[in-house]
C-alpha cells in the first residue's frame, strides 16, 4: 500500500472524498474505514467480490444511507448524513445496480423529471408541457446516451440495455459533477456494452466518475484509478497497471476469478 500514496493522481482536485467512512448493519461491518477520493476528469473504478461493500459505499455517497462513522467531503464541506435529495442537488448523481426508472412514464418524462429535480426557481404551478428549456436539456441528455429517438416510448417498454442507458441519461440530466455508476453494464449485450464503454470514457472527461463493475475487461479498459475492496475495507488502490500487478489483489479477487 505504501507505493500507492506516492503515485501521481489524475487531473484536477478531489471533488468528493471520504475519510474513515464506515457503515454497520447490526453486527456486520458492511463498510469499514474507507477513505477514497474522486477527482474531476478521472474514472475511478471500485472492484471487489460480492459483499465487499461497494454498493453500500455508493449508497452512502449518494445519501441513501447515513454512515455509521466517518466523513464525506464534497468540496471541503462535510455532507455525511445529508438526505439523498440534497446530495443530488449538491451535484452527486447516481445510477442504480437494479434498473430503477419510472416505467409507466415516457422516456422523455423520466429525464425531464431528473432535470426538474435539481432546477431552482421553477414555478411548480406552470404547465409541465410548456417548459421548453427543461425539455431541451432532457433531450440533450437523451441524445448523449443515444435514446433521443425513443423519447415518446413508455420507459417500461424499452429493452433492458436501453433502460440501463436511460438510467445514465437521468444521472446526467441533473448536471451532476460527480457520477456514481453502480454496474451500468449489468445484463447488457456485447454491442450495447461497447457503446456504454465509449460513453463512460466520454463522461469521465467532464465528471468525477465512480464506477462499480464486475467485468474486468471493461474496468481495465476505462479506469484511470482503481480501488479494490474486500469485506468492507480497502484492500488496495492505484493505477490499473499497479492493481494488476498487486499480489494481494490477485489472491483476494482477480486470482480466483481468472
Amino acid at each position: 500500500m505504501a507505493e500507492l500514496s506516492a503515485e501521481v493522481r489524475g487531473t484536477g482536485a478531489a471533488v468528493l472524498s471520504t475519510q474513515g467512512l464506515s457503515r454497520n448493519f447490526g453486527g456486520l461491518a458492511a463498510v469499514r474505514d474507507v477513505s477514497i477520493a474522486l477527482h474531476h476528469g478521472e474514472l475511478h473504478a471500485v472492484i471487489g467480490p460480492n459483499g465487499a461493500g461497494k454498493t453500500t459505499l455508493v449508497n452512502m455517497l449518494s445519501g441513501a444511507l447515513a454512515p455509521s462513522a466517518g466523513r464525506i467531503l464534497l468540496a471541503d464541506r462535510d455532507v455525511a448524513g445529508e438526505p439523498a435529495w440534497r446530495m443530488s442537488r449538491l451535484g452527486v448523481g447516481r445510477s442504480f445496480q437494479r434498473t430503477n426508472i419510472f416505467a409507466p412514464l415516457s422516456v422523455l418524462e423520466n429525464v425531464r423529471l431528473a432535470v426538474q429535480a435539481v432546477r431552482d426557481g421553477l414555478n411548480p404551478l406552470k404547465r409541465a408541457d410548456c417548459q421548453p428549456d427543461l425539455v431541451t436539456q432532457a433531450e440533450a441528455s437523451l441524445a448523449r446516451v443515444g435514446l433521443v429517438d425513443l423519447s415518446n416510448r413508455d420507459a417500461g417498454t424499452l429493452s433492458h440495455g436501453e433502460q440501463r442507458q436511460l438510467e445514465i441519461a437521468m444521472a446526467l440530466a441533473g448536471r451532476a459533477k460527480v457520477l456514481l455508476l453502480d454496474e451500468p453494464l449489468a445484463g447488457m449485450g456485447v454491442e450495447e456494452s461497447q457503446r456504454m464503454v465509449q460513453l463512460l470514457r466520454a463522461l469521465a472527461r467532464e465528471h468525477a466518475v465512480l464506477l462499480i463493475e464486475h467485468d474486468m475487461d471493461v474496468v481495465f479498459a476505462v479506469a484511470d484509478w482503481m480501488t479494490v475492496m474486500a469485506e468492507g475495507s480497502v484492500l488496495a488502490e492505484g493505477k490499473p497497471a499497479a492493481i494488476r500487478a498487486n499480489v494481494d489483489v490477485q489472491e483476494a479477487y482477480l486470482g480466483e476469478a481468472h
Partner: protein
Amino acid sequence: MIDVASEAELAPRSRSHRLLLAFGAVLLAVLPFGIPEFYTGLVTTGLTAAMLALSLQLLVGCTGLVSLGHAAFYGLGAYTVYAITPADHALSLVLTLPAAAAVAGLAALLVGALSLRTRGFFFLMVTLAFGQMVFFIFHNTKLGGGADGAYLMRPTLSLFDWQLPLTRRQRPLAYYYVSLILLMAMYLGLLLLLRSLFGRVLAGIRVNEQRMLALGFNTYRYKLAAFAIAGLLAGIAGHMYAMKEGFVNPELVGWHRSAEALLMILLGGLATLSGPIIGALAFTAIGEVAQLITERKLLVEGLVILLVVLTLPKGLSGGLSGLAAPRWPPPWLPRRPPPSRPPAETPRHG
C-alpha cells in the same frame, strides 16, 4: 390515440372519453328539471360525496398515499360552519366556505406534517389514529353537540346586504347547483394541477418515490402540499354537507366515512380523475336502491362493489371508456404472459 403524458395526469385519454364526460356534466346540469324533488336532494348528497372522493383521489390515485383519516377534514369543514354560525342568524356562504376550507386545510397541514413521516401501512394507521382522535373530540365533548350532533343555521347565498331571494322550495335546487359548480371547479382545478410541474412530481412519487428522492426531489414537501390541498378540498365538501343538511354529527368524521370514500374511488376507478365522481354517484345510488329493496344496505353495497372490482379492474370509469371505445380482446380475457426480460445481472466474467 394515446397521449404520452396522460398516464401521469389521470386525465381523460381519448376524445370519446372526453365527450362522455361532457355529456355527463350536461346531464347533471339539467337533471333537476327532469326528476322529482326528492331525487334532487339525493343527487346533491351524491355530489357532496363526489367532492370528498375527488379530494381523496389527489392522495390515493395521484400520489399513491392511502389515507384512512380523510373524513376528519370533511367533518372539520362541516363543523366549522356550525362553530362560526351564531344561533340566531345565518352567515353568508362567502364567509363560511373559505372558513371551512381554511380550517380543514390547516388541520391537514398539521396532520400531514406528522403522519407523512411514515410510509405505507404505518401511514394508513397513523392517519386512522388522527381521524379517530378528531372523531372522539366531537363525540365525547360538547364542542359540537356531542354524540347526537347539532343543528345549524344554513349558510345563505348572499353577498354583503344582497341576498339571493329563494323560496323554501327553491332552496334544494340552489344547494344542488352550488354543489355541482364547486365539484366541476374542483375537477377542472385538479386537472390543471396534475398537468403542472407539481402534478408531475406527484405522479413520480406515486410510481417510484425512492427514485424521486435520488433525483433530488424533497418528496416530503410535495406530499405535504398534496395532503393539505386534499384536506382543504375535503373541507369544502364537508361545508356543502352542512349547508344541505343543516346538521352536523360525529359520524361525518368517523373512519367509516373515510373508508366509504376509498370504496367510491375503488368503485369508480383509481386511474382517472373522473373515477371518484362516477364512483360516488354510483355508491349513493346503490345505497338508495339497497335501502328500498332490503334492510341489509351494507351487504348489497359490499356485494356490488365486490362484483365491480372483480369484473372491471379499472372501475366504472374504466368500464365506461371501454364502452366508448371497445377493445378486442376485452381486458378481462386471460392473456399470454409478456416475454420475460433478461435478468438484471448476468456476470459474463467471474
